[in-house]
């Protein structure tokens, strides 16, 4: 009985690893397609040909053409590149700044800690939409402003995780030992605290990619993100929105594009989470709070 149980457990673990590998592979495949998007495009995504405008999907144009007569498949690939690249940038920005702020706050405490944490409160309570709008106008629109706006309201989440990890670790024996051994604060942070808090932060970050992809697309859909000349999936959808009934491929194609990318990143996030923390404990309250869950 016990042996069988252990074997089962091991098989289960292997399966989990298999899944992680599979999803990692999928992610890399997606990234590969995205990075070399130009190579995969069957046509020049910006080549207009009014005589072929709004053609339904065919062998020559697997995803049809838009109203400028541009090949939708090429546009979707390039749009995917914009979307994925900006989502990844966004996640990197918030992970790095959030973690840095959290670790430093947790480690130093005092006025700095409360000041930064109050700032985090303000950011959390600030409607992302207003920030997005203001920043879009300040930077004259474009996907960059959407990224900055979302970063402004998303970093506190990471700051909180990092801070609570740091607080726990700070009182741990090995930190005290390191301190006794003469390590400087910087050494302790870089050598002990960071490596030991990275796990949950990374899981959160990977899980966040999909969500951020959707948030960015949502802002673009509202006209606050990427502006027309840039191919981006959210604005392709909002631009084609009125054609949902007449020329559905113009909307559904980019929709499926976002969907696939989000699914892949979500699967990966899940697998990473399972491997690092089998019971998914990282998602219990107090550890991290996914505030901007539903909508921008």
């Amino acid at each position, binding site marked *: 009985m016990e042996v069988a149980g252990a074997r089962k457990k091991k098989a289960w673990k292997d399966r989990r690893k298999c899944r992680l590998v599979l999803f990692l592979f999928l992610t890399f495949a997606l990234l590969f397609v995205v990075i070399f998007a130009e190579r995969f495009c069957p046509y020049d995504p910006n080549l207009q040909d*009014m005589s072929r405008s709004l053609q339904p999907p065919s062998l020559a144009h697997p995803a049809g053409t838009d109203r*400028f*007569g541009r090949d939708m498949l090429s546009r979707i690939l390039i749009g995917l590149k914009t979307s994925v690249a900006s989502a990844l940038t966004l996640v990197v920005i918030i992970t790095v700044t959030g973690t840095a702020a959290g670790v430093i706050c947790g480690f130093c405490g005092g006025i700095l800690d409360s000041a930064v944490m109050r700032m985090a409160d303000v950011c959390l309570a600030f409607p992302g939409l207003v920030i997005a709008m203001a920043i879009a106008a300040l930077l004259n*629109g474009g996907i960059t402003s959407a990224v900055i706006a979302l970063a402004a309201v998303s970093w506190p989440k990471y700051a909180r995780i990092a801070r609570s990890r740091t607080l726990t670790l700070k009182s741990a024996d090995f930190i005290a030992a390191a301190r006794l051994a003469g390590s400087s604060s910087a050494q302790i942070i870089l050598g002990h605290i960071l490596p030991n808090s990275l796990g949950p932060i990374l899981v959160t970050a990977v899980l966040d990619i999909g969500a951020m992809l959707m948030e960015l697309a949502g802002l673009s859909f509202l006209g606050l993100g990427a*502006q027309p*000349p840039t191919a981006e999936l959210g604005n392709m959808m909002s*631009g084609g*929105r009125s054609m949902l009934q*007449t020329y559905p491929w113009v909307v559904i194609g980019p929709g499926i594009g976002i969907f696939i990318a989000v699914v892949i990143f979500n699967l990966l996030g899940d697998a990473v989470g399972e491997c690092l923390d089998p019971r998914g404990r990282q998602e219990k309250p107090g550890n991290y709070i996914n505030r901007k869950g539903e909508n921008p």
Partner: protein
Amino acid sequence: MKRCAKVLVLAFGLWLGVLTGCNGPEKAAAKEEKKTFVFGDTTFNPENEEPDVNPHNTYAGWACIRYGIGETLFRYSDSMGMEPWLAAGYEIADELTWIITLRDDVAFTSGRKMDGEAVKECLEHLIEVHDRARGDLMIDTITADGQTVTIKTQAPKPALLNYLSDPYGCMIDMQAGITADGIAVGTGPYRAVSLVSGEELKLEKNENYWNGEPGFEEIIVRAISDGDTLTMALQSGEIDGAYGLPYASYPLFQNEDYTISGCATSRAFFIHMNFESPVIQEAAVRKALAMGIDKEGFVNTLLDGNGYAAAGPYPANVPFGGDAVKTEGYDPEGARRVLENAGWADSDGDGIREKNGKKLEIRWLTYPSRQELPLLAEAAQAALKDIGIAVSIQCTADHNRLRRDPGAWDVYASAMVTAPTGDPEYFFTTHCLDGSSANNGRYHSDRLEELEKELAETFDTARRGELAVLMQQAILDDNAFIFCSHLKMSMIFRAGVTGLTAHPCDFYEITADLAPVD
């Protein structure tokens, strides 16, 4: 557990059923009885300066006239000429004095007769509260005597009748007043009963209408700011007619179940040249730009034929508009030659021309709130690249700040109304003269200033038209603006209804002609 799941699915199904079961048929039945027409409009909201139906409120105040509540003393004919409406006729006593005779058979829906006194009260209130009207009309004094009104202006006002026909000139009964909701009492075929700003307006038939029998008992105007929702509402039968549908949804209604009525308006999509930008200062570049933009292609393909390629600022349905002026046609070959002769050549083979080591690059400023503008920008970007001009597009809601910064752009594409009152002077005074508020490109032409001086003092309509043609030609010869297309304004309504006709001035929507087909 399985049973549990089944029960759940059932419960959910039931819930949906309950939701969908309630009302529906009753509503339709009520509609039959009362002969109600439901009209959906994307512009009936405070964002479009139409918070209510009081013509004296806000800058535009189009709702009063559009929904058949108020009428003006004169109206625009189909060719944008002036014809009497509530007035019976007029006489110009001298340059400053207009004597207007009123119809004798018109009453407000309050029951009060529309006489000289009522008109005087209304106009006096208008110029007291409405800045634009005050500036347009420049009324000095108004005297009323029975059914005649004498208006004295402070300066010669050749286009006075045009301005009086602006929606703000709707005759309303000032004694009846304006309710807190913004409901005014007019003389039109319908009277407003209730109004929720930005949502819904209820109108009832004016039983004593002076000019025929209104066709419906009740009209409901619904503010639906989103074009796609409007489309679906018309499809599902929740509304009977619509204004402001997106072009892409027109194919859904091009069948016997719907009628589409459209015509050209003076809302023009046009490009300002920035005369402070070194590249644009070069006449050859402006000429090449004018020759390099495919207006026909833009209208036919991107707007699905819902527009008219433009030559000058005015559409073809006004006497001085359309082909009355000549401008560059789409001619990529010619554009290349023009650039070649001016010394712009592609020496490094990247497809973009350069001169003295400087690339031919144009910064194109535009904004997204008009769906056609980003399309125009993208289409032009591709077409101009073809003749060796690189275009970088900046499409931003912040264009109003940027357009006033001459260092920020080379060309600026906007959508503005060029002749809201049917009179040509408006466009030049707002866009082309030294003191014009929307002369974004700091364009200056001595000849134009001179012509404008004459126009400002000319009363004869025919001569005004001639001057307008000369002035348009002057700006077109300089390629100071490129006029791409005029908006085709369309209303779509369900078969079974008649009398909803699009008008070039965009002011008249619901009239007494609107009626069910029996």
